[in-house]
């Protein structure tokens, strides 16, 4: 021990960290990739290129990205209101934000599909609304397709239902990452900007937004990563129609039901690789932003 460290117990904590990381994370992941490698490259590629998997991958990653984006926008707004305004019941709403974390996802899925199906509280009116739009405006293209789907199924049992479930579970991630950063923002800079003649919008856009952007991106990343792997809430609301509303995790389960461990591992590994690349790119972007704002 030649140099003294400020926090004691480096050896102990490093040992713990490494043990923990290898037992809990590294070994299972290595095992997954080893299982996947048993299948052979050509077979794996063939499996991943099959239409069902491609469709599910598009839906899983697409809906996750859109849901995480929407979570980011709405989460920012919610965090803003909770931090900047004082109103009765604020503490209550603040606590409520965490509830999707605590709720078993299957319960969330069943509840959401109940509400958004054509017989549900919200889905009923959505379906009626969509019907009205269809009759009066007859929109074409993909908007027309969506209107069609909603008028038939409410919002559940379609890719819209998948989006709703992913949006629901992603929201708290954004709020909880953005909120503390907002609380730490000093008012001085805003006031300085205001005295220099900046309007409210300019203050938000030029002063506040850049400093919370890294946190917002972290929130987006967390929401996105969670949404990609989400199973419980989605299978109830998606309707699981092959080629239409099946998500990747559901296809993995379907492989396991056929006792095809290797195929399941291949899909899972591919999912992890894609997710890792995406998350890594987002992280890089965030680093650059962090560096720029400093």
């Amino acid at each position, binding site marked *: 021990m030649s140099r003294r460290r400020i926090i004691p117990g480096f050896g102990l904590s490093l040992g713990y960290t490494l043990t923990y990381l290898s037992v809990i994370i590294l070994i299972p992941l290595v095992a997954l990739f080893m299982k996947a490698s048993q299948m052979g490259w050509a077979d794996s590629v063939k499996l991943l290129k099959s239409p069902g998997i491609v469709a599910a991958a598009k839906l899983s990653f697409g809906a996750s990205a859109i849901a995480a984006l929407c979570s980011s926008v709405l989460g920012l707004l919610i965090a803003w209101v909770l931090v900047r305004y004082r109103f009765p019941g604020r503490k209550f709403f603040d606590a409520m934000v965490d509830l999707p974390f605590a709720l078993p996802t299957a319960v969330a899925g069943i509840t959401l599909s109940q509400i958004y199906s054509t*017989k549900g509280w919200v889905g009923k009116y959505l379906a009626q609304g969509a019907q009205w739009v269809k009759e009066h405006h007859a929109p074409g293209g993909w908007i027309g397709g969506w209107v069609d789907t909603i008028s038939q199924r409410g919002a559940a049992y379609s890719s819209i239902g998948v989006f709703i479930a992913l949006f629901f579970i992603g929201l708290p991630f954004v709020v909880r990452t953005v909120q503390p950063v907002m609380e730490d923002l000093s008012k001085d800079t805003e006031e300085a900007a205001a005295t220099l003649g900046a309007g409210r919008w300019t203050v938000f856009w030029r002063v506040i937004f850049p400093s919370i952007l890294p946190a917002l991106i972290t929130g987006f990343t967390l929401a996105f990563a969670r949404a990609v792997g989400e199973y419980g809430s989605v299978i109830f609301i998606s309707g699981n129609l092959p080629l239409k509303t099946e998500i990747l995790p559901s296809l993995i389960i379907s492989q396991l039901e056929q006792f095809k461990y290797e195929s399941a591992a291949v899909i899972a590994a591919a999912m992890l690789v894609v997710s890792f690349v995406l998350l890594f790119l987002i992280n890089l972007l965030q680093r650059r932003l962090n560096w720029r704002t400093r």
Partner: protein
Amino acid sequence: MKPLRITALLTLAAASLLATACKKSHNTAGSSGGVSLLNVSYDPTRELYVEFNAAFAKHWKEKTGQDLKVEQSHGGSGKQARAVIDGLSADVVTLALAGDIDAVAKSGALPADWEGKLPDHSSPYTSTIVFVVRKGNPKGIKNWDDLVKPGIGVITPNPKTSGGARWNYLAAWAWASKEYGGDEAKVKDYITKLFKNVPVLDSGARGSTTSFAQRGLGDVLLAWENEIALLQKEFPGQTEVVYPSLSIIAEPPVAVVEKNAAAHGTTEVATEYLKYLYTPEGQEIAAKNFYRPRDAKVADKYAKNFPALTLVNIRDDFGGWERAQKTHFADGGTFDQLYGK
């Protein structure tokens, strides 16, 4: 260097703790001279085995003076089979499909000819697939051909993720096969039309029941006969049952997981446990839980619960589970082909 040694010690302690925890997970001779069995089963047999275990424990006590404790584990049938393959130390398995026990057999935990070890292909009780419709049967659904009419919503789980749903699919196939005299093009056309009428494919049977009963989706639910009692208890007066002209006999099989039982020293009690399912008392409990008993006398007694209908079976009509699985449900099988259309 001292902190590192502490780390090593802690790691060692944790490892040894883990090892002992694994070892004691299953001990055969408890402190009171009792014995325990683990029955790994599927979801809807929960109530059946609670009742049966109590009855068998009493029987075993009378016969040997030994206290017996049977532990139960329930879940989706395929998931349960995987748990046993991956090391869940079951003494007996009582699953929904022969294919699931076959998969366990492939892992070497029990011999491949397990099906012949007990009467009736090792399935002590049976069930079948029937229709559940809305009260008063507003759409007039009587038989399989009604299911493909335009505007009829059929609720069934996805055969790719649900073992139960495979019976639904095969029952429909068997009917169409008889109806069209084995003309496969017509049968396939029927199945395609049938699945066009399915608005959602839930991942499991419970999900389908929820979709149909609670969410009001569809006009007819394809369900196991033994699940109907539960459905009608949960949603009284909302549904009624329609017995189609032909259905498939579902034979949930049971088997001793011989490797585990030998290791636990429970082979004898595990075998006796499964055999007891075939006794009048065991059959009675099965019938009370809405499974069709094999025993003719017990079946007569409960005849009003189980209307007679023509039943095909998977061995004669589909060449057994393994073949049916490969032809119909494996990736690229008939289901995939027809659904993609």
